[in-house]
């Protein structure tokens, strides 16, 4: 197992180097001149030049790249110009916000999609199967910002059930002391159940929004892979042996159908982190997605590079985790590795 992990991490190094080079070049290729942008509304050419020198943008590209790599090696991702903070601290505070939301969204989605997929597979072409199809199609075809705005309109504006869409906590709550950065967990560790409830309330609508969006791939994949497994010989044998329906479907069929579902989950998790951008905008969520987009619009290089690098590292970690999970679910995969 250890060897597998080390091997996978080694394999990730070239791709990370590639990501570093490509993001550096891409951000430099972007149209727009950060010096002009940050010199302010009434800048003279001289003022623009002063800002350019301060930002180090007057140096040749290769030298800029050299100092970027040097900083990177020292764990310094640079400083964002739009927010004025070091990128590394921003990512550290924002990543948990995005991750908490995405994980919860994924949980919501799994909780709905997996049972829906299983039920649809056991009764193909029934009314239930069609309902599953309609729900998942609707979920994926509605853009997330639209779903988000509709939910806010109905549950906050019209009904007043949901709290104001003002980020992770109501304005008059103090953030729980930081342990993991996940408010739900931190508030419990800190022994502040009020903050837990408040944080959970804030999470409900955005998590539902994300959940609705990711229903489709999970439900469809569960259904398809369950259908394949359910029609195989060992299921027929199990049924012939008189096992209960529950045992056949859940214990025998579902466990075998889980592999493709896990792969899909990994994929869905990564694209949810992307879809997050819009949800974060709508719910004023202080996550990394909105951070990266705002930086991009302002030609603010450092956060964009930091964001892409973090995401690349997360993909690597995620794929590694899925590979390990494979081994746990299906011992045959472990042997092959």
């Amino acid at each position: 197992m250890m060897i597998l992990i080390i091997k996978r991490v080694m394999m990730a190094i070239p791709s990370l180097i590639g990501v570093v080079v490509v993001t550096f070049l891409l951000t430099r290729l972007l149209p727009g001149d950060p010096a002009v942008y940050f010199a302010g509304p009434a800048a003279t050419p001289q003022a623009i030049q002063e800002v350019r020198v301060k930002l180090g943008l007057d140096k040749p590209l290769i030298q800029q790249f050299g100092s970027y790599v040097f900083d990177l090696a020292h764990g310094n991702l640079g400083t964002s110009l739009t927010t004025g903070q070091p990128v590394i601290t921003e990512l550290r505070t924002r990543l948990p916000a995005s991750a908490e939301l995405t994980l919860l969204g994924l949980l919501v989605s799994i909780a709905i999609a997996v049972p829906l997929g299983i039920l649809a597979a056991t009764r193909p072409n029934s009314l239930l199967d069609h309902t599953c199809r309609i729900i998942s199609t609707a979920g994926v075809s509605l853009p997330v910002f639209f779903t988000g705005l509709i939910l806010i309109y109905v549950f906050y504006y019209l009904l007043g059930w949901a709290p104001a869409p003002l980020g992770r906590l109501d304005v008059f709550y103090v953030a729980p002391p930081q342990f993991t950065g996940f408010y739900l967990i931190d508030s419990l560790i800190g022994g502040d159940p009020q903050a837990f409830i408040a944080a959970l309330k804030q999470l409900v609508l955005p998590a539902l929004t994300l959940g609705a969006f990711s229903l489709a791939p999970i439900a469809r994949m569960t259904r398809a892979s369950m259908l394949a497994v359910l029609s195989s010989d060992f299921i027929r044998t199990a049924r012939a042996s008189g096992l209960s329906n529950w045992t056949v479907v859940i214990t025998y069929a579902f466990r075998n159908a889980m592999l493709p579902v896990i792969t899909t989950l990994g994929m869905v998790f990564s694209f949810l982190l992307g879809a997050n951008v819009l949800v974060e905008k709508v719910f004023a969520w202080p996550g990394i997605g909105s951070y990266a987009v705002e930086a991009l619009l302002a030609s603010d290089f450092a956060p964009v590079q930091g964001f892409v690098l973090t995401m690349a590292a997360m993909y690597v970690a995620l794929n590694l985790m899925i590979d390990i999970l494979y081994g746990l679910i299906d011992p045959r995969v472990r042997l092959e590795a």
Partner: protein
Amino acid sequence: MKRREFLKSMSALTAVGAFSAPGIWSQARAQSRQETLLIVSESGPNNLDIHGVGTNVPGYEVSWNCYDRLISHEMKTLPNGTPYYDKNKFRPELAEDMNIGDMSVTFRLKKDATFQDGTPVTANDVKWSFDRAVTVGGFPTFQMSAGSLTKPEQFVVVDDHTFRIDFVKKDRLTIPDLAVIVPCVLNSELVKKHATAEDPWGLEYTKLNTVGGGAFKVTNWTAGSQVVFERNDDWKGGPLPKIKRVIWRMVPDAGNRRALLERGDADVSYDLPNKDFAELKSDGKLSIVSTPYSNGIQYIGMNVQRPPFDNVKVRHAVAYAIPYQKIMDAVLYGLAKPMFGAPEDAPIEVAWPQPHKFNTDLAKAKQLLDEAGYGNGIQEPIQISFDLGFAGVNEPICILVQESLAQVGIQTTINKVPGANWRTELTKKTMPLFTNVFSGWLDYPEYFFYWCYHSGKSIFNTMDYQSSAIDGFIDGARAAAADGDAAAYDKDVKGFVDLAFTDMPRIPLYQPYVNVAMQKNISGYQYWFHRRLDYRSFEKS
């Protein structure tokens, strides 16, 4: 089994959470709600110090409320009841009084004024802060130079509480320039402690900390998410503000900002789309204040160095083809001051902004094009460019202009320029046709024209307009203002306004409004030249 235990403990915790909210807490929160002003806006500061590199406009609001200047402006009241800064009247803030001599101005500082850490404010702090503003480069240095404040030698410490500024030349804008945001006074000893060899002015420290003696201090700043201000109870710059705490939250989605206002969760917001403001206004549930930008105009610019707009007849034809009223109605929902359609016999006034005499008249536009030799129209499409950062207004304007120009035979395509790129495009001065807005802090006609029409290198002469005649008027007006020669000044101002309207390198459309929406129980909004909020005057009943 483990899973079951986990689930049990979770539900137990949830139950504890639901029932353990003590009544006192919510009461305390209601109390603090009463003394807190909750502001929501689209974007927040990137730096708490206006002297910093690339401090954005929301950052100016922080500086304005957390630092004091030597002097500030008095308030006057507009006909609609809005308090508006009086550009001609100054009141002392850190200074006790101001004596303007022939070639210098002397201030006596308030003896009891202290910084927020308790150290007294001295003339040394003022000099250090002004030296910093004229030395750090970038925007602050540029803004200081607009009032002919350029060298540290100009700033003289007479004694601990007396400070003098020597003029390098006579300039009417020197005193007004001392009341803008940039010449704020910092706690120099405190900043020096945090200065380093690479950063002699301590910019890294002041970026994250407010170190002034102003009415508020920043106690929490989460970039891109919120800024929390607490009142400085020892403030000497004016009457103690009524609001104890200000929470400024960034809510990127305009629809949500409106929902927050309508549900009564937010107290103030000011950057909603015009349509929302128009609707909120007619609803009457909130108080809406609309004030025209001081010295600001949205316009259509034409590059006068290249055909076809090098021909003044074509420029006039475009000015007759603009659908002015449609823009006012469909894009701005009436929330702007028209800058077109002045009566034929109206004289040019000594004022700016003032409306020009063009109106939508397609027949006249066609006739002018015909005279210019474009009787068959212009088939090769011309690009109309706009800044995507303000697409909400710019895009519909460009579409309406495109439609209207097509009717007189000028074909156009629309070019959307991303916000980060817009400034770069402006500097190049190659866009043939575009819309943009310019507004100046200092509300003087010659200031506006110097930036927008003078043949010098200003990036806001976006039309690349070169005219020695207009340069003569502008320079004349600046000199006359400095010498106090009213007759010459009036003549020159009328001269450049008249020339700008006859040559028409840019077509003024309207003066935009600053729209602020507040709950009915909030009062005390004041309009300032910087167009941001002054927390010191707000009240909540």
